[in-house]
């Protein structure tokens, strides 16, 4: 952490340095971009600590391959077909499981929120199944579905499904009564109420469900691939660990992190397209 201290305090400097144009410029820069400077300093410190963890004897970190080796390993891995096939497989599973969760979860949620009979029929079942973590479903999924591929997609689906369902129910059952009343007065029938009031009023909650659900989908795909699959990033990660390729493990972790980040950003985009009336945060 020594490097952090020097990096952050050096430019803001001693009074003796005042009047020197260059240092004044740096001071001004640091003042204006304080967050950037501190952030960069932290990152640099972190990578330095990681790189020199072994000679410095930092516990934990020294067990991990240093960044230089990770970079070298990523070069090898990124130019191999194995890696890209794994990415492709995982993304496909995410897309399938996530899409199924939306296609099944949103209508069921809307139905449960707008129809008392449907709610009381389905609610007891969901309340028993929902607290079970999706990972705990893996063995049953393997037995239940004819292929490993289907089992993996099922686990991804389950991960996103509950959050999609809960958000949809929550959103659709808390619609301001005055919107419904205004729509009724203006001559809406049941279909109009659903299409122009219930659906758009629930959309922000559905989007929230999508964003959270996408995060959970990535968690689930990695877990399911480690156990139930022989392809995908989760499998590659576990495989790298088993053959003792430490640097490759890190590369896989980073790849999964980046993929999760990119898909969250994409979902955010889609969400803004679906709810154009909402203010930007």
């Amino acid at each position, binding site marked *: 952490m020594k490097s952090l201290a020097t990096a952050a305090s050096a430019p803001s400097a001693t009074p003796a340095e005042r009047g020197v144009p260059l240092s004044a410029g740096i001071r001004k820069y640091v003042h204006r971009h304080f967050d950037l400077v501190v952030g960069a300093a932290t990152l640099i410190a972190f990578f330095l600590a990681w790189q020199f963890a072994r000679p410095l004897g930092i516990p934990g970190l020294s067990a991990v391959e240093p960044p230089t080796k990770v970079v070298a390993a990523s070069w090898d891995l990124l130019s191999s077909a194995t890696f890209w096939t794994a990415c492709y497989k995982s993304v496909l599973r995410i897309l399938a499981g996530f899409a199924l969760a939306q296609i099944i979860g949103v209508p069921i949620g809307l139905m449960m929120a707008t129809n008392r009979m449907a709610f009381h029929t389905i609610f007891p079942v969901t309340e028993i199944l929902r607290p079970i973590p999706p990972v705990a479903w893996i063995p049953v999924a393997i037995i239940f579905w004819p292929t490993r591929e289907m089992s993996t997609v099922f686990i991804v689906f389950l991960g996103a499904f509950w959050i999609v369902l809960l958000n949809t129910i929550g959103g659709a059952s808390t619609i*301001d009564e*005055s*919107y419904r*009343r*205004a*729509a*009724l*007065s*203006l*001559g*809406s*029938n049941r279909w*109009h109420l659903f299409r*122009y*009031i219930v659906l*758009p*009023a629930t*959309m922000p909650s559905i989007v929230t469900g999508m964003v959270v659900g996408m995060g959970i989908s990535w968690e689930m795909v990695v877990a399911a691939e480690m156990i139930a699959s022989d392809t995908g990033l989760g499998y590659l990660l576990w495989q790298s660990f088993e053959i003792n390729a430490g640097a490759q493990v890190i590369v896989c972790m980073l790849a999964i992190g980046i993929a999760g980040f990119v898909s969250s950003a994409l979902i955010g985009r889609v969400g803004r397209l679906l*709810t*154009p*009336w909402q*203010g930007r945060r």
Partner: protein
Amino acid sequence: MDARTNARSPGAGSGEIVVSHASVGMFDRGGKSLQLVEDCSFLAERGLFTVLVGPSGCGKTTLMNLIAGYIGADAGTVRLDGVDVKGPGWDRLMVFQETALFPWMTTLENVAYGPMVRGIKTMPEIRAEAGALLERFGLGEFKNRYPRELSGGMQRRGELARALINDPLVLLMDEPFRGLDAMTRQLMQEYLTRLFEETRTTTIFVTSEIDEAIFLADRLVVLSRAPARVAAVIEVDLPRPRRFEQLSSPRYAELKEQALNLLYAEAAAAFEETGAGADIKEAFERRHVAD
């Protein structure tokens, strides 16, 4: 639609609401029955601006929901032009306390909503009409904005436009200007008055502001403390077109005094019954003695 966009003869195409012996009750959380409106009768005459005033919590909103058809009466009837009101309908349109413009629709889409779901015209016709109406309401530039992007006063005008495009027989307004700042509120009162004097659509307007009530009203229906009954009806004979200068006329002062005395009697009786708000009553009494 031409009847709407042009000034029309007073009362033409507008309806008459007769509330007779209406009672509405409900059960509170403890299962105790609670009477909100009791044996309430009044008339909202064709082409007149009827204002309901009453102490807060007296059941004004319940009465409006009854007329709009959102709730049913336990006893008595609500009739529009002699026909029993059986549910919500575009012939009686409500402007709500807080804006109920649909946040997910642009101003134009909001205004076009009624004609669209009723399918009475083609979409291009409806859009053109809604656009023209918004232009007339000073919202032409904001037709493609979402309600969130409009000021409070603009939202209320948008909501008025959304109701009026349907040519309702009766306009119901439940404290529509609550929450607006004093300046905007006054502008909206003036705006609504001009609009009414132009169209003469039968209007029932709920407020707890006595100045607003008298400025807008042809007829003031003073409601009793809960459960709501009619305590008195005051004919507001101030000439139209209304001007804010009339608020300083001797006749206005008389009307206000008359209405305030009735309201005070009701509020005082309510305090006596419930024991709540004794301090307010005392303050009011002291003020009254000083007068």
